[in-house]
C-alpha cells in the first residue's frame, strides 16, 4: 500500500463515526447486541483480575464481580514487599530509554536511506531489512555470551542493548520520510542549515504522527518483553516487571488473590495510559501495523 493510502486508512479508522443513537433496524440490533456481548467476554479476564485483587481470600473464588467487602489489603501487602515498585521503575527506565534510542536512530537511518544518494545505500538498506528475518531467540545465546564476557549480566545496559535500534522502525520511518518533499530540505540547505539540523528541525517535525506510532509500538514491546530480561538478570533488584511478576507468582503458589494483585499492578498503568491516549494508540498501532 502507498503512504497516502496508509495514512488515509488509519485516519479513516479513527473518523469512523460514533453515534449515541441506538440502532432501529432489527439486523443492526442483533449485530450490535452480539458485538457487545463479545466485547464483554473480551474484557472479562481483566475484570476478574481486578475484582480478585480487591477481594478477601474467602470470597476470592465466588463468581460475583463486585466484592461484598472490598479491601485494599492485597495491594498494601504486595506493595509493602517493596520489590514491585523497584521492578516497575526498572521496567519504566528500560522501556523509556530503549524507546528514545530506537526512535532516534531508526528515524535517522530511515531518513539517511531515504533522502541521501550515495554508493552502498541500497546494500545497507537490504542488510538492515534482512535482519527482520532473524528471530530474537537465535541471537539470545550469542547475546548472553557477549554479556557474560563483557560483564553486562545484571545491568540495565545488558537488558537494553539488543533493542537500541530496530530494523522494523528503520523501514517504517524510511517509508514515511518519502512523504517529505525534497524542496523543503533544499530550502533549508540554502538557508545554511547543516544536514543534521535539516533532519532534526525540518524533516522530523513533518513525520511526528509516524514517530509517535513507532514510539508506542516499541514502548509496548519493551514493557512486555520477557525472555531476554529473564535470561540476562539473576539479581532480583534488576528484574523488569514481567520477570518479577513470574518470580512473585511462583512464590505465592496458591494465594491467588495476591497473584491477581501483582498481575493487576502490572496491568493498571497500561490501562490508564490507554484510557487517556486511546485514539492515538489505536491509530498508531494501525499505522505501524499497516506498514509492517
Amino acid at each position: 500500500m502507498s503512504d497516502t493510502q496508509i495514512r488515509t486508512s488509519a485516519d479513516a479508522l479513527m473518523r469512523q463515526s460514533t453515534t449515541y443513537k441506538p440502532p432501529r433496524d432489527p439486523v443492526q440490533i442483533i449485530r450490535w447486541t452480539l458485538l457487545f456481548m463479545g466485547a464483554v467476554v473480551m474484557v472479562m479476564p481483566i475484570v476478574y483480575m481486578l475484582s480478585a485483587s480487591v477481594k478477601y481470600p474467602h470470597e476470592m473464588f465466588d463468581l460475583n464481580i463486585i466484592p461484598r467487602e472490598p479491601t485494599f489489603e492485597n495491594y498494601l501487602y504486595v506493595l509493602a514487599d517493596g520489590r514491585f515498585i523497584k521492578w516497575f521503575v526498572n521496567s519504566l527506565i528500560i522501556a523509556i530509554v530503549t524507546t528514545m534510542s530506537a526512535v532516534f536512530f531508526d528515524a535517522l537511518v530511515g531518513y539517511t536511506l531515504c533522502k541521501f544518494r550515495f554508493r552502498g545505500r541500497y546494500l545497507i538498506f537490504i542488510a538492515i531489512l534482512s535482519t527482520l528475518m532473524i528471530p530474537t531467540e537465535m541471537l539470545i545465546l550469542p547475546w548472553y555470551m557477549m554479556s557474560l564476557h563483557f560483564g553486562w549480566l545484571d545491568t540495565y545496559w545488558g537488558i537494553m542493548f539488543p533493542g537500541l535500534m530496530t530494523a522494523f522502525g528503520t523501514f517504517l520511518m524510511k517509508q514515511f520520510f518519502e512523504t517529505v518533499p525534497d524542496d523543503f530540505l533544499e530550502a533549508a540547505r540554502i538557508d545554511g542549515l547543516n544536514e543534521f539540523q535539516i533532519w532534526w528541525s525540518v524533516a522530523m517535525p513533518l513525520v511526528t504522527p509516524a514517530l509517535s506510532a513507532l514510539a508506542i509500538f516499541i514502548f509496548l514491546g519493551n514493557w512486555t518483553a520477557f525472555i531476554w530480561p529473564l535470561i540476562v538478570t539473576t539479581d532480583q533488584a534488576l528484574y523488569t516487571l514481567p520477570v518479577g511478576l513470574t518470580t512473585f507468582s511462583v512464590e505465592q503458589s496458591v494465594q491467588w488473590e495476591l497473584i491477581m494483585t501483582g498481575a493487576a499492578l502490572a496491568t493498571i498503568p497500561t490501562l490508564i495510559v490507554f484510557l487517556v491516549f486511546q485514539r492515538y494508540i489505536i491509530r498508531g498501532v494501525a499505522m505501524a501495523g499497516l506498514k509492517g
Partner: protein
Amino acid sequence: MNLYSRLSIERKRTVWAWAFLAVPIFFYVVIRFYPTADAMVLSFQNWNLLGARSWAGLDNYVRLWGDPVFWKVFRNTFMYLILGTPISLVISFVIAYNLDKTRFLHGTLRALYFLPFLTTAVAMAWVWRWFYQPVPIGLFNNILSSVGIGQVRFLNSTSNALPSILAPAIWAGLGFQIIIFMAGLRAIPVSYYEAARIDGVSNWTILREITLPLLKPTIVFLVVFSSIGFLRIFDQVFNMTTNDPGGPLNSTMPLVMMIYQTAFSSYSMGYAAAQTVVLFTVLLVVSLIQLRILRDR
C-alpha cells in the same frame, strides 16, 4: 575543516550520510550480524559455558534428529500455529467486519476489543492459569459446576493443555488483528460497494467478490505476522507450566522453550544453538510458503 569545505555539495552530503550511519552500522554488525553468524558456528560446536568451545561437526544436528523430545516439540510448535492462526484470523475478521458496520458506541466497542492487546502476556498467563484451576478455585470449572456440567481438566491433561495455553495468546492478539482488519476494510473505496448495490448484488456476494479479494494484502500480512508469533510462543507456556515446564509430559513445550531449557538449564549451548538454527529455518520456510500461496491466488 578545510578539506571538508573544499568538497562539492554532493560529496559533503555523502560525508554526512556516512556520519549518520556510522553508529548504526556498528550496532547492526556487532548486535545483529555477528551474533547470527556466531549462533550458526556454535551449532557445530560443543560448549557448556565454562570450558573451551570444541568442534562437534554435525553431532548437534544428528542428536536433534534422533531426539524424541525434539519431534514432540516440533509437533507442538506447529500445533500452536495450525490452531492459532486460522482461529484468531476468523474470529478477528468476523468481529472487524461487523464492527465496521456498527455506529452506536462504535469507539467504546473498539476500545474494549483492543484492550487485551495492551496487557502483559505474563500477567494474563497467571490470570488464565487461575481460571483453569479445578473446583473450587478456577473460574471456568466453577461456572461449569454451577450449571451442573462435569469438571474439565485444562492444564493437567496432555490433550487439553496445549489449546488451554494457546487461548490467552489468541485472546491477547485479537485486538491488534481487528484494528488492522478494520483499517484494511476502510481502505476499500466506497464506490465499489455503491456500484455493487446498484447492480443489486447480495451482501454475501459483496463480501466474497469485493471485500475479501481487496483485503488480500491485509490478510497476507496478518497470516504471516500471527504465524511468526505463534511459532515463537514462550511467555504463556513458561508462566502457565512453572511447576512442570512444558508439561504435562512435554505436551505443551514449544521450540523456544526447548531452546531456553537446553541453554539455561542443561547448559548445552551448542545443542541449543542447533535448535535456534532450526527455528530460524522453520520461520523462514513458513513465511515464504505463505507469501507464495497467498500472493499467487
